[in-house]
C-alpha cells in the first residue's frame, strides 16, 4: 500500500476531522443535554429534547410544513426548469451562452438580495405580482404572498431554479442529437420525440436536480426567514430562534440533528432508487 495519497490528503483530512466531524459530534451530544431558563446548559444525558421534538404537535406541524414547502418547490423547479433547459439547449450560439448566463447567474447573486426582490414584488396587497396577476385576469382579488407558504414556495423556487436547469442541462449535453434526428426521419412528431426519446434520457438529470433542490429547499434559511417573518416557521428558522433568541441550545440542536437525519434519509434513499432505476443509463 502506498502512503503518498494519504500524505497528500492529510492536511485537508485533519482540517475536516477537527472542524467538521468534531463540531457535528458535539452538536449531536448537545441535543442530549439538559437546559433550564436559569441554570443554562447542563451536560447530563437526557432524552427530554428528543421526546419533545418527536411528540409535540408544534414540531410535527413545523417539520410537515418544511417538507411540504420543499416538495412544492421541487415540483415547480422540475415543471419549469426542465423544459427551459431543453429550450436553452436548442438555441443558437450567441443566445445560448447569453441566456445560460442570465439563468445560471442568479445562483451566484446573494440570496438575501434575491429574496429582498421577492419581498418587494409581493409587498402587501398592492404588490407588483398581484397587480400583474389581476391585470392578466388570472385572479380577481389580491393573493397574500408575504408571510405565507405560497410566497415562500415561489421565492424558493426562484432561488433554487438554476440548480434544476443546471442538472437537466448537464444531462442534455450527454444526449446524442442523432437519435432525435433518427426518430424524426422515421416519422415521429415533435411530441413523440420529446416524450419517447428526450424525456427518458434526461430523466436521471431531472431526478438528480430534484434531489438537490429538495435538500436545499428543506434546509433553506434566509428566504423562509425573510418571506415567512417571525410567525411562519420552518425547521431551520426554528432552530435559529432556539439558538439565538430563546437560547435553548439543546432543543435547537435536536431540531437541527433531526433535520439533518431526515434529509440524509431522503437524499440517500432517493439516490439509491434513481441509481437502481437507471443503472443501465449510468453504467
Amino acid at each position: 500500500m502506498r502512503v503518498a495519497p494519504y500524505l497528500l490528503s492529510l492536511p485537508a483530512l485533519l482540517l475536516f476531522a477537527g472542524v467538521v466531524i468534531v463540531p457535528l459530534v458535539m452538536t449531536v451530544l448537545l441535543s442530549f443535554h439538559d437546559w433550564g431558563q436559569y441554570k443554562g446548559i447542563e451536560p447530563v444525558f437526557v432524552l427530554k429534547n428528543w421526546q419533545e421534538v418527536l411528540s409535540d404537535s408544534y414540531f410535527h406541524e413545523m417539520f410537515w410544513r418544511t417538507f411540504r414547502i420543499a416538495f412544492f418547490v421541487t415540483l415547480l423547479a422540475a415543471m419549469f426548469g426542465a423544459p427551459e433547459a431543453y429550450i436553452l439547449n436548442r438555441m443558437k450560439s450567441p443566445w445560448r451562452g447569453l441566456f445560460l448566463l442570465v439563468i445560471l447567474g442568479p445562483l451566484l447573486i446573494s440570496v438575501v438580495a434575491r429574496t429582498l426582490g421577492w419581498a418587494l414584488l409581493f409587498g402587501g396587497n398592492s404588490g407588483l405580482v398581484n397587480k400583474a396577476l389581476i391585470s392578466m385576469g388570472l385572479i380577481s382579488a389580491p393573493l397574500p404572498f408575504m408571510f405565507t407558504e405560497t410566497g415562500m414556495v415561489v421565492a424558493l423556487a426562484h432561488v433554487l431554479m438554476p440548480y434544476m436547469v443546471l442538472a437537466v442541462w448537464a444531462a442534455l449535453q450527454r444526449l446524442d442529437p442523432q437519435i432525435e434526428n433518427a426518430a424524426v426521419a422515421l416519422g415521429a412528431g415533435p411530441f413523440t420525440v420529446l416524450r419517447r426519446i428526450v424525456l427518458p434520457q434526461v430523466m436521471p438529470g431531472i431526478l438528480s436536480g430534484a434531489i438537490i433542490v429538495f435538500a436545499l429547499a428543506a434546509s433553506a434559511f434566509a428566504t423562509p426567514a425573510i418571506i415567512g417573518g417571525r410567525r411562519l416557521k420552518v425547521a431551520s428558522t426554528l432552530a435559529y430562534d432556539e439558538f439565538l433568541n430563546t437560547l435553548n441550545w439543546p432543543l435547537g440542536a435536536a431540531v437541527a440533528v433531526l433535520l439533518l437525519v431526515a434529509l440524509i434519509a431522503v437524499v440517500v434513499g432517493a439516490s439509491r432508487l434513481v441509481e437502481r432505476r437507471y443503472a443501465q443509463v449510468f453504467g
Partner: protein
Amino acid sequence: MSKNGPLALAFHTLFVTFMLAPILVVCWVAFTPEGFLSFPTDRWSLRWFYAIARYPEFISAFWRSLWLGALSSAIAVAFSVPAALAIARYRFPGREAMTALFMSPLMIPHVVLGIAFLRFFTQIGLGGTFFGLVLAHIVIVLPFALRLTVASAIGLDRAIEHAAVSLGASEWIVLKRITLPLVLPGLASGWALAFINSFDEVTMTVFIAAPGTETLPVRMFLYIQDNIDPLVTSVSACVIVITVAALVVMDRAYGLERLLVGRGTDGR
C-alpha cells in the same frame, strides 16, 4: 435538431422574466427619491446610494466579507491542491469515502453547520472571532475549490511530467515548473468560485458572527429582519452589480458553463 417554436419562445420569455424580475426590482427601487419603498417612474435619485456612506456598519461589513472571502478561498485552495492530486492520480482504499467527506459541506444543511460551528467555537473560545469565521468559511468553500482542482489535475497530460523527469528534473522542480503552472487556471477558477460562495454565505455565518464580525450578507439579513427600507435596496443593488461584473469576467475567462457544470470531475 429542430428550432424552438413560438410556444417555446413564449415560455422562455416568461421564464427569463421570472428569473430577472426580483433582481431588477431591487435595482429599480434603489433609485427612489422618496423616503419610503416605492417604484420611481419620472423622478430618479441617488440619495439612497449616498446614504450608504452614513452607515459605517455596511461599509466595514463589506470589507470584512471581501477579506474573509479572499483569505478563506486562498487557504481552501492551498488545502485542496495536494488532496486533489491524491484523488486524481491514485486509486487507494478510502478514496471514495475521503472525497465524500471533502464534499460533505455541500450536502450538510448550512443551518446544521452553523449550529455545529457555534457550539464548537464557543467551547474552544473562538466564539464570534474573525479567525473562527475564516476556519468555518475554509471548510464550506473547500468543495468548490477541490472540484475544479481535481478537474484540472485529471485533465493534465502526465507525459509532460515524465518528459521533464527523463530530462533530469527533480520531483520538486517538476511540481514547481510543470505541474503547478499547468493546474493554475483550475486553481484560479476554483478560488473565484470559492470566493463568490464565501462572499454570499449567510445561513451558516449568521450563527457564528458577533456584532463586531458581521459579514455583509449577515448585516443585510439582520437589517431586513427589522425593517425593509430603500437603504437595504441600494446596498443590495451594489452587491448585485459587483457580482454581475465578477460573473461576466469569470464567464469570459473560464466559461460559466465549465465552472458550474464541471467536466471530468468525480466529486459529484
